[in-house]
């Protein structure tokens, strides 16, 4: 090997490429223990992200399951043809219990407010008041006392507690 050979070799070989700084850091850590490759690191990151997503999804599902409305009774209230309501009563939660009321075609546009009463209570107990949309329908959820009866429910116009628009069948 003489300087002329070196000159030729230099011309043919070209400039070496500069390795990235992260590669240098990664290589110089080799003596301190095995390191996962860059691709392995990415796989670990992706797997961790996927696991986190699964956990979050499971958590959301679990919360939904725990907080889902599970009725223990359903009371149908009927009135003029085509008009009805269903009150689904949930299990007690402390001193109250949840109720979901689904009302269909209740005198569309006829009233501003309606009231739901439990006539089995003495005196009768107003459980909630509500409004309907333009078609006379609505769905609402509310709480009623856990000890209150749902055996005789009625829907009345506001401030007309003796005028029953819908009533549960007894």
């Amino acid at each position, binding site marked *: 090997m003489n300087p002329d050979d*070196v000159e030729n070799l230099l011309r043919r*070989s070209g400039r070496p490429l500069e390795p990235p700084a992260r590669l240098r850091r990664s290589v110089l850590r080799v003596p301190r223990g*095995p390191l996962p*490759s*860059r691709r392995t690191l990415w796989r670990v990151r992706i797997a961790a992200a996927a696991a986190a997503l699964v956990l979050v999804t499971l958590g959301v599902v679990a919360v939904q399951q725990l907080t889902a409305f599970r009725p223990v009774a359903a009371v149908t209230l009927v009135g003029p043809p085509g008009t009805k309501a269903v009150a689904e009563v949930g299990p007690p939660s402390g001193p109250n219990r949840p109720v979901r009321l689904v009302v269909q075609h209740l005198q569309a546009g006829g009233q501003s407010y309606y009231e739901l009463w439990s006539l089995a209570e003495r005196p009768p107990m107003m459980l909630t008041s509500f409004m309907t949309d333009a078609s006379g329908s609505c769905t609402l959820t509310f709480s009623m006392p856990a000890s209150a009866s749902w055996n005789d429910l009625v829907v009345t116009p506001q401030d007309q507690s003796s005028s029953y628009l819908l009533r549960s069948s007894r």
Partner: protein
Amino acid sequence: MKVERLAGGQAATHFDRITEGPLAEAADGELLKQIASGSEEAFQILWNRFGAAVYTVCRRRLGDVGGAEDATQETFTSVWRRAGTFDPARGSAAGWLYAIARNAAAQLVRRGQTGSTLAVLSDQTADQEHDPVMGLALHAALTRLPPTEREVLELAYFDDMTQTRVAERLRLPLGTVKTRTRSGLHRLARYLEDTQG
């Protein structure tokens, strides 16, 4: 540069002087010997000397940056683990490193971890211009040159500048550029002769 210069325990007393001590000037084979005995300093010097050269080989063989990084990492991991298997009687350290790098690149291709195909892994297609081991050794030898000699050689041979142009660029007398060029070429020739054994 001869191996005997670092024989015995003498080298161990200078391990802390990585860039200036005797170990920094050690021959490639001696560095591998020290690495086999667990010297991180020798490993770092070997990286400084061969890192860019091995990375360049891997880039040229594989074509993609990610694959080249993985192959280079794999190469130096193998060097750390298998330095004790290097036998100077069977070939140069540069040739040994080149074989490891080539195998690391081939493994990546076989495992489908790079966009390259096995077809690009033949020496004929990947390094058709010159002996790839000599190219690797040359790039490594360049890192051992004094910076003043290295920069004139790089400008002249990699950037294809005339010596006059190099002198203008570096604001040096033309005679100095010629001296440094000549000195650098001789030094490189000596390093490469050592490499070839």
